[in-house]
């Protein structure tokens, strides 16, 4: 399988900074993959997201080394506005990306830019409002709705454009747990029903882990660890060392491993943890009952 995104020896340093934000990145991301990118603040996650959409180097000043290819073509080689039709980015601050006066205008803005006809726009609008449950909000100004709704609008505006690749830069960082869950439900549906390549930069690992096929850890501008989600989280010691705190259920099992009370794989989700805990506790539980 050929990579839809190929990054080779990529470094980016913003003007007037001492260190590169990204330093010697090598990555391949494949079509249809759901990739989670994590890392502490300042690790270069947002810079990577901007690089994938051509906003870097297009909109920022700095020094670039190496190559970032999207669908086999270097990002700078795309004509202005062309790459963004293939790569959609959702930023962490939804309000910062609103460009229109109503939710409906916001959703159709990108579609009009694509040059779609009115029936095509109507069809996509219906599809995306159904997917993101935004129908009732269409006539409202996007800056007057709740934080969770705003982020769903931002996500829907990008989704409607049906980009091959979607990059979500901390899409739930400003949301409460319920709104966060709803965003990931939408991403879950997207994963099940579409074949988009989705790259999510996120701190909320509980929601990300069940969806991600692969995880990448960025630290100090470099790829510190990457691999399939289950394999990735077995390296929990390294993650903790890099300031990443996996879900507590996983950390709990890691403690059990450290105390040699458990020697299997670390569970990724709460359900897996409950199941494994049952296996761990059953013999002791029955002993306790019997004593």
């Amino acid at each position, binding site marked *: 399988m050929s990579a839809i995104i190929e990054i080779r020896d990529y470094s980016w340093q913003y003007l007037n900074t001492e260190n590169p934000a990204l330093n010697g990145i090598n990555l391949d991301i494949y079509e249809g993959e759901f990739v989670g990118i994590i890392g502490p603040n300042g690790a270069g996650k947002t810079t990577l997201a901007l690089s994938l959409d051509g906003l870097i180097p297009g909109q920022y000043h700095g020094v670039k080394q190496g190559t970032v290819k999207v669908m086999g073509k270097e990002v700078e080689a795309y004509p202005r*506005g062309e790459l963004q039709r293939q790569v959609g980015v959702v930023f962490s601050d939804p309000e910062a*990306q609103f460009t229109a006066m109503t939710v409906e205008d916001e959703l159709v803005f990108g579609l009009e830019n694509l040059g779609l006809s009115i029936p095509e726009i109507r069809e996509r609008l219906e599809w995306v409002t159904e997917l993101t449950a935004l129908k009732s909000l269409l006539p409202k100004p996007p800056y007057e709705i709740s934080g969770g709704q705003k982020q769903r609008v931002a996500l829907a505006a990008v989704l409607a454009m049906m980009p091959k690749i979607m990059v979500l830069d901390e899409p739930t960082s400003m949301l409460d747990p319920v709104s966060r869950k709803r965003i990931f439900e939408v991403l879950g549906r997207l994963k099940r029903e579409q074949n988009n390549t989705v790259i999510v930069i996120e701190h909320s690992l509980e929601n990300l882990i069940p969806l991600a096929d692969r995880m990448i850890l960025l630290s100090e501008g470099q790829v510190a660890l990457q691999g399939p989600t289950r394999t990735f989280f077995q390296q929990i010691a390294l993650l903790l060392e890099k300031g990443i705190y996996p879900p507590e259920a996983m950390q709990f099992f890691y403690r059990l491993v450290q105390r040699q009370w458990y020697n299997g794989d670390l569970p990724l989700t709460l359900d897996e943890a409950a199941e494994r805990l049952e296996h761990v506790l059953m013999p002791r539980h029955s002993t306790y009952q019997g004593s």
Partner: protein
Amino acid sequence: MNKTMLGYVPKESPIYAVHPFVKLYFLLIVSLFPMFVAAPEWNFLLLVIILGLMVISRVDIRIVRIYIPVAISMGSIILISYTILGGRHPEFQVVFNLFGLPIYWERIRDALVVYFRILPMIATMVFFLSTSRERDIIVAMRTIRLPFVVTYVFAMALRAAGMVLEDFQIVRQAEQARGFDTTGKPLTYKIRKYIMYMIPLFALSLRRSEEFTNALVARGYAFTGEASRVKRADYILTHYTFKPHDFVFTAIITLAFIALLVARYGFNYFGLDDSWFIRWLYSVLV
């Protein structure tokens, strides 16, 4: 209730049956009427008509109340500018002397003429803002086929104005949280310390501009290049149709304007010489 730029209008209001272009056309053309009418009573009649339209449109007329102090202070300033600060004109008729300053009839008359010209203009603007949303302006502009980039820049300006106000509140609250509060302080202190708000607001505005640019680029919008030449469908306009009554309203506004010009310059109507109000005032004062 539907939110407008200046308040709320019930969903049942007949104003929603009117195309946004007609509302904008009304604003642009009717605002000009007082410029061609000198007689205050005609401008007062226009003011009453606009207030009547607001009632018909089910605009909460209480919003007009907040403009009463503005109207009073504006009237006072105009009157003072024309009379006390109007200079000495031996050729004018003196009505009375105020602390040795002659107050002329002509200057009082001119102040009233100006004042009664401004009032319906403001009322027209209030009527428009009370019955329209930002989107209506954009729709109106697109209806007359203004280039997309023009309407979009205008929309961004509207949006930016709202964002700056929001950011100002955030900065103010942040300053207050750190113990900096100008509430109750003298005006000179407030002006001196205003820089405390302005610097972060300026920095925030720069950041907002950057984010906004990124958002535009990320949505595939380009001002130049191949992408900018894409033929855009205007989906929003599909929600609005120019109905027969919109043609009628547009025609009425246009004909009224033409009739006004003909009456003013062809038959010399609406001038001061024909004003019964001015004649009555003259008989009272002089």
